[in-house]
Structure formats: C-alpha cells, structure tokens
C-alpha cells in the first residue's frame, strides 16, 4: 500500500522557535479569492473530491511514515489551540471549549503517524478516515486540516461565513477531506462502522477513527453501533470518547451520568483503554496500543478538560463549560498570550 504523508506546515517551515503572529486580526480575504468556484457545487462521493487538488497552496514533500516527536506534536497542538480561538472569535460564534478538549487526540491522529491521508488528493480511496461525530467541535478539525495542508491557514478566517465551506458543522459535500456530515449528535460511530465495513468489502487496509462526545453518549444509536461493530469485529475501527465532563446544559454528572464507560463498553466486545486525553504522551501510547489490536473494535475513553489550555480564563469567567460560545476578543487576546 502506498503511504503518503505530508509534513505539517509549522514543522516543515522551520517555524519551530519563531514566534507566530498572535494578532487576532486574521486576514479576511474576499471569499472568491479564498475558495475556488468548485466549492459551491455539490460534491457527490468520489467524483468532485478530486477538484480539491488545486486548493492546497503549499507544496508538501511526500514523506514515508512520518512520525513526529512528542515535542513536535505538542507544538502543533498549541498551534491548533490558537487557531481554534482565533477562528471562533473571528466568527463570533462556535464551540471553542468543545474543540480544545480534543486537540491532543486530533493532533496525534493527523500528525503522529496514525492516519494515512493525502491532503492534495483527499479522495484517495485507500485513505484512513476521520469522523468527528461531535460535529460542533469542527474548529479543531479545520485547524488540523489547515496544518496538514488541505487548505491554507488564512482560510480559517472564513469559518461560518457565507460562501465558505468551513461551515459551522462538518459538511462533506463542500469540503474535501471531511468524511462525514455531522451535527446531529449520535450518528458518527455508525457512519464510521459503515466506512470500516466498506474497507473490508474492498479488501483495503483503510482505518477509521471516530471522535464522540461524552454527552453524545446519551444517544441510543451509539449503543446500537457499539453492538453491531462488535458483531463484525471491525479491527480497523477506533473510537475515542472525548470525556470532558460537560455537555450543553451542565456537567455530565448532573445531566446524564453514564458512569464508567470502560466498564460499560468492554462487555460489548470492544478493546477499551481509559487515558488522560490532554496528555500527548498518553494519547500517542493509547493509539499505538489500539493500532496493535486488529481483531475487534477499539475504544479510547479519553478523559479531558473542556477548554483545555485556557482553563484559568474560563474559571475567571465563572464558566468552566463555556459551551457553544466564542471567547470575546479581550479574553481571546489573553488566551493567545497564555498559550504562547
């Protein structure tokens, strides 16, 4: 199998030590300048995805089996955090705290050597797939995709704006590289299971990764998917519960306490690990372990903090859930400084 990997921008461009501009004033180019016309059309599966080859503005080298060091991954994680805050504050809406808790997982998947993809050919059939079932956290995915070269970092500033394919929730019709249109919670694990089964039918080695919210685990459909994935012993499916302890109206303890996910999910026939999900070391280790298991589906219960990286600011604001609202500009400035 061909393995195509691309070096993430911040590592490749040698910006390691150089401080990045922390201005909130992200360039806001004309939409026509940023997104080619083809982005307005309907992308049916397979076909139009190829159109995206033009959008990657940086020329990445092909790189076999790229695996960044933990330090490099942490550096990327910081870039993603900053971009999550910048783009949601610029959009004056969105879910930054839900995005921040999942940064380590998404960073490790895209840049830690766990996922095969080609940012210049997002429709490559044998690619691995990432499904963000908790679609409202899509800023973390857009930030990772920009970093990976699916599109340019400048384009992040068009989040949620008219004409931009960076919609408020992932839309596969409009943005190549998005593998599932989500936003109605509960469906991503089933979609990922379908993709994992398709790889089995096609006899490819594609793997599928699904990120689910802990509040989202209240959806019955997820438990349907847990059962049927175990039936089909999909060893190419890994799910991660981003257990940040909060959902929309309060803590998961108050709203719907599901107890110990590991104890509940293991008996379904899944391989389950529980980790500290804002620790890059633990995330990378857990993904390695999951990679080594191929006879059944794998779950990583990733205990995280909603708003990880800027928690003191959320505490100061008196809201450690901070669900579904952007940081006001002054708070965002402080957050960027805190992350630097």
């Amino acid at each position, binding site marked *: 199998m061909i393995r195509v990997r691309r070096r993430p921008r911040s590592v490749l461009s040698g910006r390691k030590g150089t401080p990045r501009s922390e201005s909130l004033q992200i360039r806001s180019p004309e939409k026509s300048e940023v997104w080619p016309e083809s982005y307005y059309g309907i992308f049916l599966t397979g076909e139009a995805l190829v159109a995206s080859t033009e959008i990657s503005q940086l020329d990445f080298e092909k790189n076999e089996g790229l695996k960044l060091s933990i330090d490099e991954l942490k550096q990327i994680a910081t870039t993603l955090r900053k971009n999550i805050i910048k783009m949601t504050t610029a959009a004056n809406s969105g879910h930054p705290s839900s995005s921040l808790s999942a940064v380590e997982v998404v960073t490790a998947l895209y840049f830690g050597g766990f996922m095969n993809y080609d940012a210049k050919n997002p429709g490559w059939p044998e690619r691995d797939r990432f499904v963000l079932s908790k679609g409202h956290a899509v800023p973390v995915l857009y930030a990772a995709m920009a970093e990976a070269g699916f599109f340019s970092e400048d384009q992040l500033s068009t989040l949620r704006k008219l004409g931009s394919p960076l919609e408020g929730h992932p839309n596969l019709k409009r943005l190549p590289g998005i593998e599932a*249109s989500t936003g109605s919670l509960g469906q991503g694990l*089933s979609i990922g*299971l379908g993709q994992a089964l*398709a790889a089995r039918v096609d006899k490819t080695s594609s793997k599928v990764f699904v990120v689910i919210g802990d509040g989202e685990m209240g959806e019955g*459909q997820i438990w349907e998917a847990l059962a049927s994935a175990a039936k089909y012993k999909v060893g190419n499916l890994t799910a991660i519960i981003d257990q940040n302890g909060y959902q929309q109206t309060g803590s998961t303890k108050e709203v719907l306490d599901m107890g110990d996910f590991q104890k509940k999910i293991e008996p379904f026939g899944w391989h389950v690990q529980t980790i500290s999900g804002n620790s890059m070391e633990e995330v990378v280790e857990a993904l390695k372990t999951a990679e080594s298991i191929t006879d059944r589906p794998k779950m990583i219960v990733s205990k995280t903090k909603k708003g990880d990286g800027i928690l003191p600011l959320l505490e100061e604001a008196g809201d450690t859930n901070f669900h579904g609202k952007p940081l006001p500009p002054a708070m965002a400035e402080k957050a960027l400084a805190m992350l630097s």
Partner: protein
Amino acid sequence: MALGEASGLKLGQATRDAFGDALKDLGSEYKDVVTVDGDVGNSTRTEPFAQAFPDRAFNVGIAESNMVSVAGGLASSGKTSVVASFAAFLLCNAYDQIRMSVAFPALNVKLVGSHAGISIGEDGPSQMGIEDVALACSLPGVVVMVPCDAVSTKAATKAMLDHKGPTYLRLGRPKAPAVYQGGCDFEIGKAITLKKGDDITLIANGLMVPAALDAATELEKKGHSVRVIDMHTVKPIDEEAIIAAAKETGKIVVAEEHLSHGGLGSAVSMVVCENSPVPVAFVNLGDTFAESGDGDGLLEKYGLTSNEIVKAAEGLLS
C-alpha cells in the same frame, strides 16, 4: 371484485418479491452494491441477495438508526448501499439518520421500504407505512418511487441502482395485479400513460394503478374518455405529463395508498395550481390510521377502491 379484475389484469408477484429477485439478479453485475438489513431481510426480500453475496450483506440487528447511518458510511466509501426495512420503521424510526447520514451529504444510499400502505392487512397500523412518501419527499434531493407491479418494480430497482444519489423505493406486501406484461419503459421522473383519453385524467401509483384502470373501464362504459397515468415517481414529479393532463382533459383524480398530506396528491396539486388550475379530486387514506384486518377488506373500508375513484371522477364530470 378483486383489484385489476375489471380491466382484465392477472395477479402477479408482490412488488417486494420483484425487488428481491431483481436485486439478486443485478448483484453480480453491480459489484458495488451492498445491503444493510435491520433483521427483516426475509420480509423486505433482501435475503436472496444476502445469500448470494454474503460478503456484501450486513445485518446490524433491530437498530434502524444505526442501520441507515452504516449505509451512509458504506456509501461515503464508494458503495451503493441498499438499506431496506418496513417503510414505517425505515422512514419514521430513522428519519433524522436519513436526513443527516444520507440526504444532506447526498450519498448513494438506496432506501427501500416494504409493507407500505394498509394493504399489508392483519399486522395492523403499527406496521403500515402510510406517511412514508411524505417523509421521503420532504428531504432535499431524494428521488421517491412508488411502482405498481412486479415488472415496473424490477425496472425501478435497476433505475435506482443506476441513479447516483439518494432514492426511496416504496414496496407493498400483497401480490399485485400485473399492469405491465411485456416490459416497462421505466425512467425516473417520467410518468407512463397507460390509457389515452380526453375527458378526465386518473393519476395513480402503487396499488391504486390497477384500481384506476378498473375505474377507467367503468367510466368508459358510461361513455367517458379517460386518461390513466402511472405516476411511479413522486419526486421529481413529471410536470409535463401533469400539465398536459390538466390542459387536455381539464379534470384530474389522484389516487394513492397513503395519507392525504404530503403524498402524490400534494405533489400533483402543486404542479396543477401553479401551471394550469383545474379541478382535482383525491382518493387516499385521508387523515387517519387504519386497523387490523384482511387487506382487501381494509382497502374497501378505507375507500381505496376503483369505486371511490369512479365516484370522485363522476363528481368532477357532472
């Protein structure tokens, strides 16, 4: 008198059986086709396909939401997913999954709902899909097909697999009168005129097509010239055929085995009102659930008969 008898039609296969046979027959040529079942494959008739192609058939258990999203996932990876259940369970239990995992991403998922209408009989209202067409039509970009007999269902099955994008195929449980004998020139969105006539047009789909043919026979005896149209595709609807019928015959009766709201009657009315307003009468289930009983008895009791079509037509003709 049994459906289709007055117009000399013989009973043929049920549409679900015709679908099952066609799917299995097309299976070796259409290599991308996979099926996803929710423990009803022996009712929806995806079973023969599953037996012939076990590696391409998945049964996720009684979990329609999961079933539909799994089909979406398979389709997003290039498969043509055929996902079948009872019309009621598919459309009602998994409506949001159809919306988000199928229609919105415009994936190549073929929704198939069997046991549609009240003619399923004894199992009763919980199993009867009476609102499925309305629900399917409400989703942007979904093609909605209601074939009337075995021959047209086989053709519809092929057309559905050839179509790129989401579709809904509505199937019935009981044996259906064979409207088409030699073959059927089935094209999505293109109505088939079964009888030419100038005084009135009967537009029908599904089991109401043979009922409309019977009604036409009766009306012709009374000296009327009746056009009969098999409107097998509700969406996209054949506007041209409807406008021509309105202009040329001036009166239309729409008959369907479905609730009054959101089905074929609604779709035809929109075209008529906008383009060529003429009187339209409706024969359908109305605004009610049905009950248990034998299928023919139910059709009779709830007014889904050729007699009702005749009455509606005479109301317009008088």
